[in-house]
């Protein structure tokens, strides 16, 4: 923390928020609002005289409200920057007649109520999103009586309570009578693994955090009774199982089953009813204090930032990686990287590791001092563009901007474009050229293929990463299939334009196959969703035209599915044999008419 605060190349902006980001990889424009601190952070020595005289007392957020602070305060003793701040909403005002006590007492004259919010502009080449987490708040559903029973705490409140630097100096006392609790319970999965409340995902850290807390409790007081109510104990990481065993050896009871209800006794103890799924019996446990192991939610600002940077979210609300296994810290938006709980719940070790990984990826991007854009990108022909916005809608990389209202033609940011070609396939006006995979180039392949004996051939489009690779793998495995299929390679199945399919049928193709990566495995995030929609659309049109929809097939074939590729080819050949001369002739005729 202090290292970051004092590093000559790190500019720390606290009380600050990113308001807007424009531009693209290599050249982002960032607008930041730095809220007024009302204390000169470089001059303040954190002596604390100001807070002493401040008359406004508020609950201390850092201690989860278990202690108090003033309206002028240091968030916590080791804060960086090591300077006080005024919460201006709480402050009585600086009119000397009203208060201004802090201003008077500050020798160094650091306090200045005339400070105002500052707008800061920064130019950066890359962005690391490390927006962290937000703990689940059990007040919403009043889980286990949290809002009604004072001796029910959240795990974060408990954390401050056992912390040597916390409000009790690390002494565990329960709120109602400030006595040492002798019987303490922990309830796991509060706001996790539940369809009703919080997330339905596992929050990753709560099991180990509870186990740690049980060890701390047993260290403080070996005789105290500690019970943990759980579904599964997820001690999955390095050294975790060892801590779990140690906790059990020290006598901590792990009871499988989440409590059904909690009630308060006359002396403010808690009566916990649980069906022990091991014994199968309903048990009542009386406890002095109860700790709710609350889950982790994404930071509330996640969605705003997601829109600003064109990022994706998982159904759980965390940021989605460009590839969940092979590019785990890259965002789909080029130049943006994830670190820490913003990407999903994780512990400190994982956060630190991921942060270093994000740094590696950012450095990899920046070390040359320039961005080389792959030439296989798309290109807008402005004279044809009607600024309809379709291309921007389908681009998985947010690489296209178009002002639909002002009818300003689309613009491709070639640094962000990954070259899937979905925009070119979807453009209703033929206004987008996909370099190296132009309409003309692909259509010429179709035409060349079908110039002779079209009736005998199977036309197949295959994406480079999965289905074309699957075909190669069939070859490596020497899997035999009929020799009349001819593949046309595109980078992504999303490139396969409707007109390629119509051209094939118009030139007499009996059957056409479109193949790509499985849904979820697309090399271009989710461009193959558009393939799927497009094929469905063509199917419908075929039916309308009286062409058997079956003649157009869609198949997902992964790079490892050589056998599946061969099987699909055999199936296509069977299909081809069922297509009659008459059908083909009819199709050619109907498609030769002006409007398809």
């Amino acid at each position, binding site marked *: 923390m202090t290292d970051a605060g004092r590093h000559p190349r790190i500019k*720390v902006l606290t009380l600050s928020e990113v308001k807007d980001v424009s531009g693209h990889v290599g050249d*982002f424009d960032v607008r930041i609002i730095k809220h007024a601190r009302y204390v000169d952070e470089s001059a303040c020595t954190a002596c604390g005289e100001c807070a002493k005289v401040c008359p406004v007392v508020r609950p201390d957020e850092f201690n989860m409200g278990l202690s108090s602070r003033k309206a002028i305060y240091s968030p916590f003793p080791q804060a960086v920057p090591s300077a006080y701040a005024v919460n201006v909403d709480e402050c009585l005002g600086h009119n000397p007649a009203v208060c201004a006590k802090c201003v008077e007492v500050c020798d160094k004259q650091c306090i200045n109520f005339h400070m105002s919010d500052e707008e800061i502009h920064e130019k950066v080449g890359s962005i690391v999103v490390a927006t*962290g987490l937000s703990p689940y708040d059990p007040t919403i559903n009043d889980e286990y009586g949290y809002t009604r029973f004072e001796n029910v705490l959240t795990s974060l409140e408990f954390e401050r309570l056992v912390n040597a630097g916390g409000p009790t100096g690390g002494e565990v006392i329960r709120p109602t009578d400030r006595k040492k609790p002798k019987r303490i319970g922990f309830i796991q999965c509060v706001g996790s693994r539940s369809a009703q409340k919080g997330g339905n995902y596992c929050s990753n850290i709560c099991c180990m955090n509870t186990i740690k807390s049980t060890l701390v409790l047993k260290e403080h007081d070996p005789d105290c009774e500690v019970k943990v109510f759980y579904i599964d104990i997820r001690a999955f990481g390095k050294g975790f199982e060892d801590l779990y065993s140690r906790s059990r050896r020290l006598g901590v009871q792990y009871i499988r089953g989440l409590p059904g209800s909690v009630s308060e006794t006359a002396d403010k103890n808690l009566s916990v009813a649980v069906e022990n799924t091991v014994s199968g019996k309903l048990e009542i446990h009386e406890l002095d204090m109860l700790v709710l192991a609350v889950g982790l939610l994404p930071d509330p600002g996640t969605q705003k930032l997601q829109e600003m940077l064109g990022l994706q979210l998982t159904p759980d609300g965390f940021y989605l990686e460009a590839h969940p296994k092979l590019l785990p810290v890259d965002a789909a938006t080029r130049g943006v990287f994830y670190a820490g709980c913003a990407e999903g719940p994780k512990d400190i070790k994982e956060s630190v590791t991921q942060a270093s990984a994000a740094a590696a990826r950012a450095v990899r991007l920046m070390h040359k001092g320039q961005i080389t854009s792959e030439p296989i990108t798309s290109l807008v022909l402005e004279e044809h563009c009607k600024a309809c916005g379709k291309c921007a809608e389908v681009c998985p990389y947010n690489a296209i901007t178009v002002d639909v209202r002002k009818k300003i033609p689309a613009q491709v940011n070639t640094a962000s474009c990954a070259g899937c070609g979905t925009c070119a396939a979807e453009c209703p006006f033929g206004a987008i050229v996909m370099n190296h995979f132009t309409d003309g180039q692909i259509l010429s392949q179709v035409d060349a293929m079908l110039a002779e004996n079209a009736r005998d051939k199977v036309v197949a489009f295959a994406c480079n990463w999965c289905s074309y690779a699957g075909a190669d793998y069939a070859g490596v495995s020497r899997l035999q299939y009929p020799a009349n299929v001819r593949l046309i390679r595109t980078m992504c199945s999303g490139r396969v334009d409707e007109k390629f399919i119509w051209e094939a049928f118009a030139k007499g193709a009996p059957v056409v196959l479109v193949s790509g990566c499985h849904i979820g495995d697309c090399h271009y995030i989710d461009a193959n969703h558009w393939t799927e929609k497009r094929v469905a659309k063509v199917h419908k049109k075929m039916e309308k035209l009286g062409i058997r929809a079956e003649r157009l097939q869609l198949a997902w074939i992964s790079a490892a599915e050589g056998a599946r590729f061969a099987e699909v080819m055999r199936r296509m050949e069977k299909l081809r044999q069922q297509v009659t001369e008459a059908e083909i002739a009819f199709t050619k005729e109907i498609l030769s008419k002006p409007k398809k």
Partner: protein
Amino acid sequence: MTEPTKNIQAAAPRIGVFVCHCGANIGKVVDVAAVAEAAGKMEGVVVAADIGYACSEPGQQEIKDYIAEHNLDRVVIGSCSPRLHEPTFRQMLISSGLNPYLLEMANLREQCSWVHMNDSEGATQKAMDLVRMAVSRASLLYALEEEILPLVKRTLVIGGGVAGIQAALDLADNGYEVVLVERKPSIGGTMAQLDKTFPTMDCSI
């Protein structure tokens, strides 16, 4: 149908087609000589030849000699999968003074000879088609250049918790400027609130 404005040929293309035996791998199933001969008659093809191993050093040299001799501006190779040797042959074009995007490959091994081993006739027909398609496409290829865009060597880190701090430090220690933006009055995030075992204020943080 719209054609790219860029895609205008200055002159008639001069394509060379080279069909690889890959030892017996292609040659035993596909009639390589016949494919080369058929290719020689295709539109835009100036020269066509069969080659023992196109990927080998001598094979590449042979092709480069053809490029120079016939002043070729486009090359079609019928051999193995482009996933294997496209980088090799693109490099070869560069060393012959051609733009690497003026190469097209026909996959005659993984997607032809190896999968139609008992159908020499069909495989040869397919090989001819694949070469024809490649030639047709090749005649419409145009040179592409990598675009060089400027880059600001600075990073914005959003969030000053343990992850943001670590990312900022690793970047700064690598020589990059970092702007670290934190909503709260201090950096530190949730970690600063935690008690020891998930660790404490110890050491550098």
